[in-house]
C-alpha cells in the first residue's frame, strides 16, 4: 500500500473534513472574512503539501487543523494590531480545552444539527438569510428592519440554539 494518497482520495478527505477545518478556524479568529481567507489559504496549503500527509501518522483532520493553526499564527503576526483577536495566551488555552474535550467539536456539531431541526421555520429562515455570506445588510434591507434589530433577533435565536446545544451535550444524546 502506498503512503502517498492519490489525488482523488485526497480531495475526498479534504471535502469530508473541510467543515472541521472551517470550524477550527472560527475558534481562533472571529471575523467571517478573515476565516474565509484563512480557509482558502489552508486548503491551498493542504493541496500543496498533500504528499506529506501520511495516514499512518494520524487523522487527516488533525493534520489539516495543524496547518490551519500555522496559518492563523502567521495571520496573527501580520494582524497584531487588530483589536478583534483574543490574546495568544487565551487562544492557546482555548485550543487546549478544545483538544482535551476529545470529540467536543464533533459533539457540538451534532448537537447543533439536532437543535436546528427544532427551530421554528421563521427563525430558521432568519438564521439562513443572515448567515449567507455578507448578507446581513441585504437581509435587513429586504425585510425593512434595521441591522441592529436583525443582530438582536439573531442573538436571541443563537441563545435558543446554544441553550439547546448545552442541554443535548449534557444529556449526551441527539436522538
Amino acid at each position: 500500500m502506498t503512503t502517498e494518497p492519490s489525488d482523488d482520495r485526497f480531495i475526498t478527505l479534504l471535502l469530508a473534513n473541510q467543515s472541521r477545518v472551517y470550524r477550527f478556524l472560527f475558534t481562533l479568529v472571529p471575523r467571517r472574512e478573515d476565516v474565509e481567507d484563512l480557509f482558502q489559504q489552508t486548503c491551498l496549503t493542504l493541496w500543496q503539501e498533500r504528499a506529506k500527509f501520511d495516514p499512518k501518522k494520524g487523522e487527516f483532520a488533525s493534520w489539516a487543523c495543524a496547518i490551519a493553526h500555522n496559518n492563523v499564527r502567521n495571520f496573527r503576526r501580520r494582524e497584531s494590531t487588530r483589536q478583534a483577536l483574543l490574546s495568544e495566551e487565551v487562544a492557546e488555552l482555548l485550543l487546549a480545552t478544545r483538544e482535551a474535550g476529545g470529540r467536543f467539536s464533533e459533539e457540538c456539531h451534532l448537537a447543533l444539527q439536532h437543535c436546528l431541526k427544532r427551530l421554528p421555520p421563521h427563525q430558521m429562515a432568519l438564521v439562513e438569510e443572515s448567515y449567507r455570506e455578507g448578507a446581513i445588510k441585504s437581509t435587513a434591507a429586504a425585510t425593512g428592519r434595521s441591522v441592529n434589530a436583525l443582530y438582536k433577533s439573531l442573538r436571541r435565536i443563537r441563545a435558543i440554539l446554544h441553550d439547546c446545544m448545552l442541554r443535548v451535550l449534557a444529556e449526551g444524546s441527539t436522538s
Partner: protein
Amino acid sequence: MNSDEAARLRNWADAYVEGTLGPAERESLERELLTSAEARRFFLSYLELHAGLAWQFRGIESELPFLREVKPTPVSTSPWWGWSLPWAAAVLAVAAVVWLSMRGAPREPGADSEAVLAVVRETLRGRWADGREVRVSESVWRGGWSLQSGLILLAGVDGVELLVEGPAIAEWLGAQHIRLTSGTVVVRMPKGRSGFVVETAQMRVTDLGTEFGVSVSPSGDERVQVYNGLVRTEATASGAVQELKAGSGLRCSAAGELAPAAFVEDRFIRRMPRTMPATPGGPLYNRSVLESVAVMRATNEVSVDGQLTEWNRGTFFKSACEPPYAATYFVEGGMMYDATHLYVAAHVGDPEPMRNASRDGFQFAGGSVIVRLSTDRRLGWPLKGINRQFRPTNPSRELVADSTNERVKSLILWHDAKSGRASLDLQHSFELEPAAAAPAGWKGAFQMDADGLGYTLEYAIPWRLLHCESDPPRAGDVMGALWTVHWSDADGRICFGQLVDVTNQNPPASQTPHPPAFFLSGPYWGRAVFQ
C-alpha cells in the same frame, strides 16, 4: 456557572463574533477565560455554534474553496508568489472538476474520519427532509438522514458510490453498511471491491462486486435488482439466502417472503442526468398553512373533461412552494361529492407538465397529485392511525384498528405520458396497502395549460372504490385529509420536489415528523369538511 454569568459570557461572545467587543469587555472576557475552564467550554461551544451556522449557510458557489479566486498573501515579496497562487488555484480547479465529473470514487479505505462516511458529490435538486437544500461536498455522517426529494450522488470514503432518489430514509451504519428504511438507492462499487451491505427491514443485501438497486416502498414492499456482477440476499426472518446475477430481480413482501421479480431496466435511476431542464425551478418545498378543504355538494352532473365547467373555483384552496418558486409551482385544489362519487379537481403549476413515465412503483415521482382521505366518520378528526414504522412497540388494539382501517384511502392521480391517459392508483390504510386489482369504474381527464406551464386534472371516483358505497360521507362530516403534489424532471422519472398541504396546524407536541412523512401519520392530516 449561574444564569447571570452565562448571560454575561454570551453577551461577550456575541460581541466578539460580531466584531463589537470593546477593550474593557475583552479584558474581562480574557480574565474569565484564563481562570475558568467552565467558561472556556461555554465560550467554545458558542463559537462552535457560530462556526456551524456560518458553515451550514455558506453559499453553494463558495463550497469548494479552490474554485474561488485565492487572495495572494503578503508573506513573501517574491514575484513568483503572485504567480504561483493563481496557478495553483487553476490546478486545483482542474483537479476538482475532473474528480467531480469524471473520476471514480477513491480506491483506498479511509484511515480517519470515522464519523464522516460520505460526501455529497452531485445533487440534482436534492433537499433534505427538514427543507435544507443538499449541497455538493456536504458531509454525510454516521447515523440517520432523510432525503425529501431530488437525486443525490454520495461518495463513500471507502470507495462506494450511492445514487439516492428522494424521498428516502436511510442510515449510515459504517463505511460499508447502510440501512434503508424507505426509498431507493443504487449502489456501485469500484472495480475489484465488494462487501457493501444494504440492510432493510426484511433483507440483508451484500454486494459481491457489482452495481445493484434496492427499494423499500412505504407499504414495506422491498425489491432488489442487479445490473452488474452478483449480490447475495438474505431474508431476515427465514434466513433464506439467494444469489442474484446481473439481469435478475427479487421481491420481498412485507411478510418477509422472497420471490423472483421481473427485471425492469427503468425501475431504478442509475445515472445522474447530465443536463438540467431549461425551465425555471429549484428546490421545491412549501410551508403548510391550510388546515381544511371544503368538499362541496355537486348540484349538477359532472362531465369529466378537465374543463372544470361544473366547479365553483371560488371554493378551491391554493398552496404554493416557497418563493421564488411560488409563481411556478403551485396547486389550486377542489373537491366535490354526491351520493355516488367523489370528485377531485386541481390546477397545478408545473413547467414539465404531464410527463409522467409511470415507473413501476414510482408513479408518484414522475409528477402527481395525491389526495388522502378518510371515508369513515367514526375515525373523527384528528385521525389517530399511523404507519407501523411509527407505532409504539405494543400499540393498543384501537390504534392498530385505526391504522389499518381500509376506509383511509390514498388516491394517486397522474397523467401517463406513454398512453396519454389519466391514471389512478389506490392504496388503503396507513399501511398503504395496494388495491387487489386495478381500480375500475372511475373517470379522469387532464388538460395542459395553453402556455405549457401547468395542467388541470379532473376525476370522478365511485364511493365503491373507497369502500363506503353503503355509507358515503354526507353534509356535516369532517374527515381526515391530506394533499400532496409532486413535480418531476423533464423525463417524468425523478421527483424534484413536493408540496404538502391541508395539514393539522396544531399537531401533537410529541416528535414532529417532517411534512414529507405526514402521510404516514394521521394526527398530522388536515380536514375535509363536507358541505
